């Protein structure tokens, strides 16, 4: 429980937001097991895909496996309780921090965490399942698509995690609530991935990334408006 450092940087909304984000990272790194578990899950999933599909996976398999691994790694990342969710911590934070800052900090934290996870997944994929379908520029475009998808997923999953934690429903609830809602994101992402792997130029298929950005903005805005109702008792 890290109570002491909060009082220092709480003067303005921006500094509170930055502090909360940094705090979330500190908590995450403090529990080394959690982080290691995430990375291990991602790499083990990629390795399993390699065992199943082999290093000669065709375009369809490569695309679908990449997005499936990303999706489930993201769900694994959010299926953890907040270390600050004990009653005293919440009572303290409610007075000091505005809920909007909290949820934006959570979304930022998850976006950064999932971005890092995306890098690991992408590199592992190239390593195990080969990069014969992607030349340099395509690889970059695909990576960019994965990053946009992880941001969209983070903005939705932060809110779903908050909902599930408040409902005391366990992490099965995150999957039940989150998976149907995240399907539009996956639909767009897989369509973008297939386009890139099939050689369509980035300019022609970049509108998908625009959709993902819109979805991220939409989910983030909904979270910003609705989180205060979860925050206050």
């Amino acid at each position: 429980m890290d109570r002491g450092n909060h009082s220092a940087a709480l003067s303005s909304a921006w500094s509170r937001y930055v502090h909360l984000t940094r705090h979330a990272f500190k908590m995450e790194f403090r529990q080394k097991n959690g982080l290691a578990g995430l990375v291990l899950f991602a790499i083990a999933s990629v390795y399993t895909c390699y065992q199943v599909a082999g290093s000669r996976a065709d375009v369809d398999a490569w695309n679908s496996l990449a997005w499936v691994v990303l999706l489930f790694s993201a769900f694994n990342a959010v299926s953890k309780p907040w270390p600050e969710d004990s009653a005293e911590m919440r009572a303290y934070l409610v007075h000091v921090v505005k809920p909007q800052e909290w949820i934006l900090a959570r979304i930022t934290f998850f976006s950064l965490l999932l971005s890092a996870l995306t890098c690991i997944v992408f590199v592992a994929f190239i390593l195990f399942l080969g990069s014969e379908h992607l030349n340099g520029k395509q690889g970059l475009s695909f990576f960019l698509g994965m990053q946009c998808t992880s941001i969209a997923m983070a903005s939705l999953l932060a809110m779903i995690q908050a909902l599930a934690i408040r409902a005391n429903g366990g992490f099965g609830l995150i999957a039940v609530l989150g998976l149907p809602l995240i399907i539009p994101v996956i639909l767009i992402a897989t369509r973008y991935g297939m386009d890139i792997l099939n050689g369509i130029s980035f300019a022609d298929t970049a509108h998908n990334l625009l959709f993902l950005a819109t979805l991220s903005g939409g989910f983030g805005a909904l979270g910003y408006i609705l989180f205060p109702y979860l925050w206050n008792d």
Partner: protein
Amino acid sequence: MAHNVWKIGGFALITYVLVMVFVVPMGPGLLELRSTEGTFISEEMERPIPEYFLTGFATHWNEAPDQLSVIVRSQSNLVQLQVIEVLDDTHARIGVSLPYSLPSKSWDVLINHPVDGTLLLENGLFLSDRFIDESLALPALAIEEFAADLPFHFPYQPRILETIRNLMLHVPMWFTMFVLMGIAFVASIKQLATSRSMVEDEKAEASVKAGLLFGILGLITGSVWARFTWGAWWVDDPQLNGALVTVLVYSGYIVLRNSIDNAPLRARLSAVYNLFAFIILIILLMVLPRFTESLHPGKGGNPGFNSYDLDSALRAAFYPAVIGWILIGIWMYRINLRFTRLNKLLK
């Protein structure tokens, strides 16, 4: 009694719609022009002419067999074909005597008949073994198109044929679900705005449950329709996937409600989730389908219908069907609401 009129009205409308669905006949159309691999020798010509079968749907050729006229058209080139014999109302033998050099391989088939009017079969005739010279221009025929002399009927759509009758059942399910989820959306917003009462939360729950029933019915009617027109119970189509995911999302709403015991907390959390759910419904069923091509009628622009789907005969049954099913859906929601409120009172 006066305030119950709408409930009876809903069922009255659907009664009218069902009568229309099972009584109104289908309009005529052309199914195919198929080669019999045989030839026909007429008295005037020395060479044998390739013989084709022309099959119509709900046509009435036997009512004026001598007045059936068959024409093939490619852009502005029109060639009259010879009707060898009219076999019955829907079958005829046609002699296709076209020269060896043609301006195109693919020809539309048109017929004129006093009862059936002018019928069109696009790309009905495809000749792969001819010499194609696109600059050729065959003598242009004058062709007048005229309307059918038939009683009230539903329009012919290729591939859909009789199953167009399902339109009155399948599509209104989705309209009704949309209206009911909209009622739940408004109720959820109001629930978040108040702090004490559960009134709006009860409304949201009852409405979502009724809407979910219509969503599932919509999926079932759509699946049966797909089996008869596309040959499969399910296809990978964005609108089908969107509909299924919407039903899953609202099922998640029910799961969420069941996992919280504290009533005010449940009201608040499910209201928050309901807002997400409705936004996803809008995205999946109204936004995404406009951007994709698919088998589902009315793509690339309007996820509902193109204008050709709703000719006036269909409109006469479709609009009442939509209103009728929406009224029935709202009545179901009201009864559900009464029931849950009574349950709470009894506890």
